[in-house]
């Protein structure tokens, strides 16, 4: 059992959980994830590690309560815990002194982006952050990113904070000013990563994305997380989760993400109605 030391509600359906996990805290690197199972019988849910402290033995996860499984996780309270927690999984991010770095995050994609942005900054890069959400209420990690970035632009779809529009619009602004970047990391919903990485790619910016496909074990066993990268079959859990955006077959990736849409919908409804 891994206990919950702290819970913070970031938005109506987004929570931050601080979990007891000394071994993972000691080893984790930016870009890596964990898989957890709340109780016996729960599904295995992969989540990227947002933060951690090796001395104090904890990691932070940010959960968007989107499906039945994440809703149940999000309802956990301090003092409770999760039955199974395994990690850190996946390859760490490639952190280098690239020069001018662009970090673009949308929605809860800002959660996995934070440790990468932090590491890029620590490696001596100039950091430009573009962050977006549907509205001000749902924009997470603003203070953390502000403290980190050399410059930052916020975009909300309703204009309740920062620029009205998507992060892709914010990127177009920068591009039209003739700004140049040496490296970009884009994390968010798959459709957003596809759209934004197409724009960054067009300007010749090498762009990395972090994929969140359906997976079970997270160690290479099931092959459910396979992705077509440059015509080669890659497993996000052992070869990723980060890949060169320009080489990903996005249509195939998006299609596979929707494999269980009907099942997910039913689970969400049941969970919403029964509260269990």
């Amino acid at each position, binding site marked *: 059992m891994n206990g919950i030391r702290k819970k913070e509600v970031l938005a109506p359906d987004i929570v931050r959980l601080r979990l007891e996990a000394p*071994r*993972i805290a000691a*080893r984790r690197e930016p870009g890596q994830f964990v898989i957890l*199972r709340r109780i016996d*019988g*729960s*599904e*295995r849910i992969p989540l990227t590690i947002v933060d951690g402290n090796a001395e104090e033995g904890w990691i932070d996860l940010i959960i968007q309560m989107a499906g*039945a*499984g994440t809703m149940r996780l999000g309802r956990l309270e301090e003092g409770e815990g999760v*039955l*199974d*927690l*395994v*990690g*850190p*999984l996946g390859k760490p991010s490639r952190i280098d002194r690239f020069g001018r770095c662009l970090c673009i995050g949308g929605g809860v994609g800002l959660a996995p982006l934070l440790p990468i942005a932090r590491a890029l900054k620590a490696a001596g890069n100039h950091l430009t952050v573009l962050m977006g959400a549907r509205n001000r209420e749902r924009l997470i990690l603003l203070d953390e990113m502000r403290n980190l970035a050399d410059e930052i632009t916020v975009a909300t779809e309703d204009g309740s904070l920062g620029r009205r529009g998507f992060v892709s619009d914010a990127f177009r602004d920068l591009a039209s000013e003739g700004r140049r970047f040496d490296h970009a990391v884009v994390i968010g919903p798959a459709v957003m990563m596809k759209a934004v990485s197409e724009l960054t790619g067009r300007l010749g910016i090498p762009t990395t994305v972090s994929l969140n496909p359906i997976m*079970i*074990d*997270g*160690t*290479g*066993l*099931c*092959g*459910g997380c*396979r992705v*077509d990268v440059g015509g080669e*079959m890659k*497993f996000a859990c*052992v070869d990723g989760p980060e890949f060169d955006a320009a080489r990903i*077959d996005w249509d*195939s990736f998006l*299609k*596979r993400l*929707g*494999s*269980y849409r009907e*099942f*997910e919908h039913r*689970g969400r409804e049941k969970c919403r109605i029964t509260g269990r």
Partner: protein
Amino acid sequence: MREQDPDTRVSNFAEVPLGYTDEEARAEARRCLGCRTAPCVAACPVAVAIPEFVGQIAGGAFPAAARTIRRANALPAICGRVCPQEDQCEKACLLGKRGQPLAIGHLERFAADRERREGRVEPPARKPECGKRIAVVGSGPAGLTVASELAGAGCAVVVLEALHALGGVLTYGIPEFRLPKAIVKDEIAGLEALGMRFVRNFVVGRTETIDHLLKEDGFDAVFIGTGAGLPSFLGIPGENAVGVYSANEYLTRSNLMKAYRPDAATPILRSPRVVTVGGGNVAMDAARTARRLDTVQSIVVYRRGEAEMPARIEEVRHAKEEGVLLRTLCHPAAILEDEEGFVQGIRCLRVELGDRDASGRRRPVPIPDSAFTIECEIVIVAIGNRPNPLIPDTTPDILVSGRGTIVADPADGRTSRPRVYAGGDIVTGSATVIQAMGAGRAAARSILEDLGQPVQPRM
């Protein structure tokens, strides 16, 4: 052995063979010739004292029979079910020259089940603690065997398992109807009683490296038994369509995550027509699981002939009885999908068998212009695995073969690194449960030897 009726069993996940009664077991055991040469023992990868335990069953000394088996085999209830006895002990049985060989597997299963039912699983005697600490990576058949041998010899053994459940392929891979999970749990609980410790959710290569275990965590030796690894795919168009599963994924969803239960949190696609590609036991497991998950037409597509199928004859028979259709001499060329990306069918070429290849089997040669389509909604790819890279990638200087398997001497499990041993599928590529156990047993002996501990004489 009596079995569940095929029409009934396709609508449940209960075990197919029903087991012997005491009388049936004694009658079968009495057929043993008790031949002095005991070729069956030589043909058993872990050298179970077969004539001895069979004699005990014949005499009604059932608990003694179980104890006899356990001297050589830590997992008798499992091996009695999943060992390919027809290629091992039963193949060597002299009775088989003139009729049916002795049903050694069924008798082993009987002895183990009866012991279990009576709650008399006695842990074998344990030697005093020797002060050596061993990490065993993976709780599948190889790892469990090493662990039980070493724990019995007085070592402090910690078994590290990547998943949330123990048992490796016994738990995630082999279906309930072939190996009930309650039996796997009981066998493992019996091993736990030997004093070994199990740590779940620990991925060696990620959570810690082999070097860390040896240098920082103070283990005297590490055994790597991580199993089959990453599923292979066909490399044909359409393999990323929705409804294409590796057998690993399909079976893991059903077995480990219990997706066959209506209230399970983990989904599995159900549909009337399923095609499984492959000819091994795993393909049979997948095709038979599909039959139990609302599939009306479960077809196995295999590129060679039925005689060349690597699956056990019994598994093929069970599959056929359950209405699984075999399409042999059939080479998958493409998976067809609709506009939304869902599987529509699989395009195949007919095959003729050509010259013999390195494996001694005749090579399948696709016939030009022979393409045809099998309509289906799910395709399960069951063509084996390639080794998992996590440990080779994070363990400097460990020798890895061109195929990516860890190089270890099959006779003793020693790798290119001192104090690091390996066995099972990570060394051999896909093989059987009992072969992995044999490798585990061999490795356990060399670990004890290398640590300067007394090695028990082999029975």
